[in-house]
């Protein structure tokens, strides 16, 4: 039987994958993907717990997150394209201009 814990473990694994991506990746596009994975990990957890407690607010939250992620991707990708056109790269090491 697949219980709550299984879902949460999957969500945790997904989140960890996303986190590692955020930490390790240098390409902005890849960072985006990693962020999306983390958001979706949260979604899985929300949905699972919502089901477990028989409370719909968790699933509502998941929808909100999906909506926000979608708009974020739309705007973010647009910005990335502009940045790529301007700089010719999306590698973060090359984009470090605000050095303190």
């Amino acid at each position, binding site marked *: 039987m697949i219980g709550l814990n299984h879902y949460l473990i999957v969500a945790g694994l997904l989140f960890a994958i996303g*986190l590692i991506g*955020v930490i390790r990746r240098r390409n*902005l596009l890849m960072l985006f993907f990693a962020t999306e994975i983390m958001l979706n990990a949260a979604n899985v957890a929300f949905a699972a717990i919502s089901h477990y407690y028989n409370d719909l607010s968790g699933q509502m939250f998941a929808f909100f997150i999906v909506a926000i992620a979608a708009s974020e991707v739309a705007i973010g990708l647009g910005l990335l394209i502009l940045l790529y056109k301007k700089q010719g790269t999306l590698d973060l090491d090359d984009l*470090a201009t605000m*050095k303190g």
Partner: protein
Amino acid sequence: MESLVYIALFAPLVSSLFAGLFAMSPRQTFVGVVSSLLLFVSFVSSVLLGYHIATTGANVHVTMMDWISVADLHIPFGFMADQVSVTMMVVVTLVSTVVHIYSIGYMDHDKSFNRFFSYLSAFVFSMLVLVMSDNFAGLFIGWEGVGVCSWLLIGFWYHKPDVSREENPSISPSWAANEAFIMNRIADLGMLVGLFIIFWNTGSLQYDVVFSQIPNLAPAVLTAAAAALFIGAMGKSAQFPLHTWLTDAMEGPTPVSALIHAATMVTAGVFLVIRANPIFSVTPEVSYFIAALGTFVAFFAASMALVNRDLKRIIAFSTLSQLGYMFAAAGLGAYWIALFHLAAHAFFKALLFLGAGNVMHAMHGELDIFKMGGLRKKMGWTYAYMGLASLALAGIPPLAGFFSKDAIIETAFNEGTLILWAMLVITAGMTAFYSFRQVFLTFLGDERYKEFGIHPHEMYGFVLIAMSPLAILAVIAGFFRDWFNSFIIHLLPNYEMSEHTHHLALILGAIVLVVAVSGIVLAYIKYAKGLQRSEKTENGFIYKLLANQYYIPKIYEALITKPYAEISKLMWTKVDIRIVDATVDGIAKTIYKSGDGSRKMQTGNLSNYLNWMAGGALVLLFITVASYVIG
């Protein structure tokens, strides 16, 4: 009568301010004349007051205004003339008037003539405040006031540079002035503490209130108060170990030495003990200590005078020695005898100093008695005056010193303190010896000054006339002993010799007299024919020890002055800069460095930031979990 108190007190102040007006202008003889006149006015007022008190037996007490008034501490400016203070007033104003007139002649060529009179009169004013005040705080005003005037007058020739101790034992007038001031301050702290003890235990600083409270006080409190007050007295009266400033104070002009450092200021300590006699008479331990210390100083100072070559320093040591006598008397309970000796001493010692001033004036500032001799031919009057004063000092009847000093020695015998008695008798012999050693070396024998091309001349006539009152008093003051006794015992406890002593009085007197006369004879044999120096004696250990004042000034320098300067330097360069300030700067630098170090986090690389963020999130998560688990 109240107005007489004010006139006596404030005439010197007016004189000081008047002379002060001209302090920065060239020499004006009338400044000295006006000052002397005002001092004479003060003297006449004092005498009238004395006459009033002697005839009516009533004290004159005035309260001018409040000075400090906080919570239950009330200190007024109150002045009183009673038997003790009026005696002091007469002595002070008399000697001051003579010294003022004398100074017109002595300071003749000094460009700071006017300033000198301003200081001198200010001193007299402070001294009168000291003796006339009706409370301890007022006494302290005068106490500090005379200290400052002494500082100003010792350092009067402030322009002289510092020289080495070998060249001049007092280094420079300004050095000597500072030494005197600071040493007195050490003692003043003791005095202040005495005031505090008295105030917190009696609730007042007025003499009458304090003395009426004495029966209610614990013996320990009284002992502490007496000890603290006596520490104050030790400074002003230059008792061991605070004595070194007095001889160095001889850097001041000679009239100053006569007035301040012989006749008046240095006796303030004795005056304090006499004034506070109700306290001292119920504290036998402190009183005995005073007597013992006084006797010791009498002997100790006289021993240093034996070999000294400096005209003024010899007299200074002799002053020190006589102050010891006074303290011995006061400590043994014979307060009126101490006061009597104080007055008699003021007359003949001032005369001696003024005579020395004449010699110094004649010798163009030379003070070494080995370079003098035979001055009698040129300075007959001065010889007579100094000889007379020395006879009085040596205690030869019927001069003043005989009556007063003999009484002190007799007291020591009467109290059964035979060691003190013996020391005082020996000191009397030493006194006679060094006084006449000085007189003979200066005035008799070969004229050694000729080698140095000095042409001595007698002092101005008016100066010699001005000195005559002192000379007369030095001769006759002793005859007033019984009268003075009946006058003063209205206020001071009487002291009478026991039956036993009374029987032996003649023998005791004879012993002292024999010792004194043999001292003079010895001096005559050794020095009257001229100076014979013996290498052997002068290189002897004891001679050197005495000539170097038991090396005490050098010990003080090595143990106190120099270490203090060095520790101060150390405190500044090592502690204050290297530790305290460095810590503050260290904290500031640490903050700056940490900022400088953490600045490197700001790489501008988004990836790094994300790493920091992730790390931070993990740390926060860990803390949350940990606190959940623990708490």
